[in-house]
């Protein structure tokens, strides 16, 4: 589709006075116009890089105990200090951040995908399919997530025990995270089905799946993108919460939640153990929240940033001319 338009753009650019800008570029521009969102994105990317390459900042790893520095504050040897067990905190935080981001990305991404497919299917087929799928959805919403997490991570069968605890938590979080969005997608898709342009496509004889792909999904797209970032935040917070109360990730696996939970008892004696992972968690969720607003502006065709966008564009052009 985009290829098609591009060829036309090339042909017409010669004679057409107004230069046509690609959709992707418009979205990027609109996002870049929101300074808060750009800051958020920068912070998030920095943390992501930190979680991948932060290990190079220290020669210690998260399994090695430094018997000479047990429970010591930040020092040149250990930049962020060490834990009560004498493990380098920087190494722990790098590992924890990576696990948290991983959980966030997997849960946020997959749950959006599941909810989009589930919601669109419900809306598109309607009738009996809709009622049955809706019943399952409601049943899942009513299930107490915290109990299932507790049972799965501590009391579950032998086969569950063999999985790494973060993977287990991811699976459980994923299982409980998509229902709300699926309901939202369903209602949105149902109202889109009533739009005249969907009717027009139907009366043109366009196959059903093509209508879903070309008219429904793109129009729900901005919601899905938003829900992706919101889902990441939600998953990270859920992981932290579950780990904090001790039913999430279990040692020796490390996550931000485990670190925060472990340090709450000794905030006064080992303050760095508590504040460092907390700050990282705040930066992580905060940056995502900052990005959300910009993403909405960028994807929503009806958002007011269109009007403002044009004026800024002309202003920029004027500046360039000067």
């Amino acid at each position, binding site marked *: *589709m985009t290829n*098609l*338009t591009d*060829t*036309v*753009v090339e042909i*017409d650019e010669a*004679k*057409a*006075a*107004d230069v*046509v800008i690609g*959709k992707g570029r418009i979205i990027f521009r609109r996002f870049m116009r929101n300074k808060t969102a750009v800051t958020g994105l920068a912070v998030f990317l920095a943390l992501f890089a930190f979680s991948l390459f932060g290990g190079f900042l220290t020669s210690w790893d998260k399994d090695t105990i430094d018997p000479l520095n047990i429970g010591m504050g930040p020092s040149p040897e250990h930049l962020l200090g060490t834990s009560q067990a004498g493990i380098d905190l920087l190494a722990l935080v790098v590992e924890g951040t990576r696990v948290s981001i991983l959980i966030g990305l997997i849960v946020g991404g997959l749950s959006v995908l599941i909810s989009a497919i589930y919601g669109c299917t419900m809306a598109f087929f309607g009738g009996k399919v809709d009622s049955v799928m809706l019943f399952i959805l409601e049943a899942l919403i009513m299930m107490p997530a915290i109990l299932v997490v507790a049972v799965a991570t501590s009391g579950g069968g032998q086969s569950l025990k063999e999985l790494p605890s973060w993977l287990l938590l991811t699976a459980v979080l994923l299982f409980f995270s998509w229902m709300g969005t699926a309901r939202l997608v369903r209602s949105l898709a149902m109202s889109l089905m009533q*739009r*005249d*342009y969907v*009717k*027009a*496509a139907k*009366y*043109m*004889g*366009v196959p059903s799946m*093509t209508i879903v792909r*070309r*008219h429904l999904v*793109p*129009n729900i797209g901005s919601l899905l993108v938003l829900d992706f970032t919101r889902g990441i935040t939600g998953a990270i917070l859920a992981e932290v919460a579950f780990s904090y109360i001790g039913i999430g990730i279990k040692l020796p696996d490390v996550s931000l939640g485990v670190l925060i939970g472990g340090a709450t008892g000794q905030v006064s004696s080992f303050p760095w153990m508590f504040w460092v992972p907390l700050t990282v968690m705040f930066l992580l969720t905060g940056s995502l929240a900052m990005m959300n607003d910009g993403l909405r502006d960028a994807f929503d*065709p*009806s958002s*007011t940033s*269109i*009007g*403002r966008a*044009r*004026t800024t564009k002309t202003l920029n052009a004027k500046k360039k001319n000067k």
Partner: protein
Amino acid sequence: MSELSTQTGPTAVERQTVERLRDAGMYAPGDAVLSVRDLNVRFNSENGVVHAVRGVDFDLKAGKTLGIVGESGSGKSVTSMAIMGLLPETADITGSVRFKGQELLGLSDKAMCKHRGSDIAMVFQDPLSSLTPVYTVGHQIIEALTVHNPGMSSRAKEARAIELLQMVGIPSPQARLKSFPHEFSGGMRQRVMIAIAIANDPRVLIADEPTTALDVTIQAQVLEVLHAAQEETGAAVVMITHDLGVVAGMADDIMVMYAGKPVETGAVEDIYYRPRMPYTMGLLGAVPRVDSAQKSSLVPIEGTPPNLIKPVTGCSFADRCPLVTDECRAAEPELLSVVDGGAPASTAGSGDGGHRAACIKSGALLDVDAHSIFHAPPVPVSKFDGVPRDERSAVLELKDVKKHFPLLKGSLFKRRIGTVKAVDGLSFDIREGECLSIVGESGCGKTTTLLEIMEFHPEQVGEVVIGGVSNKAATDGKTKQAMRKEMQMVFQDPTGALDPRFTVYEVLAEPLENLGYPKDAIRKRIMELMKLVGLQPDHVNRFPNQFSGGQRQRIGIARALAVNPKLVVLDEPVSALDVSVQAGVINLLDQLRAELGLSYLMVAHDLSVVRHISNRVAVMYLGKIVEMGDVDQVFDNPRHPYTRALLSAIPVPDPELERTRERIILQGDLPTPLDAPKGCNFATRCPVFAALPKAKQEKCLTLEPPLAAEASAAEGATAGGRVPEEAQQFACFFPDGEIDADMLVVHA
């Protein structure tokens, strides 16, 4: 007030003098009740300051009606809101609005409340949202009385409320006082709104598009009520509308607004018979007439109104005016008196200054035909026009099509308590190159009929045959695809019908891709289509929201034509467009029908548009066709009482005719299809039925009249060499019967 005087500097002294004179009793009651001088309204927007109203002047005398006419965005409603003091505080309002000599602009909201609803009252456009749903109608009327008459006893208030409801024609007012708004139909709610507006005997009544949201038959009722209310209270009325027909019969004076400024004012006859400003002439030429077979093209006004963010230099209409010269762009023309040569200057109703127009060429525009100055295109001739109807092949055939919806009740176990017969046994056919229109009030099943045809599913009750393919035979995808290629649809709302995320190119490519056209062919076809519907080919990369309403509808038409269909289904194709834009789209549809040999099936509520564009017309009432035939035959000689009432409800943009003609005002609203009567559906509202003797009424109530041509008419038609099929058919036992006197209205 004092604040305002100090702010305005030098003029303040003058103003105070005037005020003192008026306060000292120099104000004579015979003067205007409402006088507006140099009213300017500015709004702030994201893109800059919008100068929405630019210098409006008028005087309104008691008992007179001023019609303000203009397109959307011309500042009509903003003017009325400024008078009422209902604009947001962020708006910048300058000038003067005087009610009986007292300045209203600059009054605080609290001071303004004393005038609102008692001296000046307003009737809003949308009756569905202007009543609070949680209070009874009686409560809301009494509330209006309480606010301005705190001393009134509750019994007196109730008596007054009943009196008011009676005045606006609500049956059994005592009982209806306790009803909630949702128990009233749209027309009834608008009556209640009028009752509230006249509750305190206002001196000025402002009606902002009071009938735009209503059906024509209901519109006629409401206009009648407004008329009665004005006679009862002697109030001056400001009638704001875009419909030149609505004001023709009611108004004494007309003010035509364009781009926030009055461009022509004068007595109603001056404006309608001797317009002197090209815009007014264009507007009048752009409206099709329902009362005569008009076979000339409509006058299209190209372009769009200027953006009021930029200061207007020169005439605001210059960009769309066919007579524009460099002089026009030099300075904005003043509203100056014009001399109506020959014709005696009629000052009968005009408030001040007689006929004035803002055009430097107005002197030369006397007796000039709008069609010639606006270059109305010649009437297109189709290759099918010469071919007799029965020799053309049918592109669409409906045989006894029915759509019944079950009405269910109960939460757990659904019981069927009735059937809504939305479409009940429809049969008609459309031949090549002709346009059939279905008309009727909302809720009569027009749109359901279209959807049944478009859905084209085999389980349909009755048979739909499109281009020789029957829906009974269309079980596989291939046959369906073949049929889809024959028939395309144009939607009512041009904005909703285009995916906001698609460029025009993508919109137009969709049907072609679906049929598997190669890319090169698609590009070529799209360029052809853009030219065909009168759009710039380099606009293909734009998104729909970068176009005006008329352009969007053109894109919608281009999409429908992409696959070369034989039949185009038009669902209210122009009802969402402004009058001047509408004319362009109607002309386009006419031209395409002739050039491409298309057939149209159109649904419309605007009978003037129907008369202009169609060859045949079917009148629907409660899911059934009550009259069908050649459009001129049906419109000039309607036989069914419903058709007669429907046609007489349409206001005509001709003040003299409008004032003197007889009108049939139907009583009541469209009954719900649920309790459709056993005999003739229309008997409950029928003006002929009401006048019939008891014995004959019995026939209407027990037997259902079939849709058939009158025996003698059919014979005559055959004798005259025409086929009986083409004869006018109607479903009534007593065509041309006497009309009940109660339902006939003639204005003196």
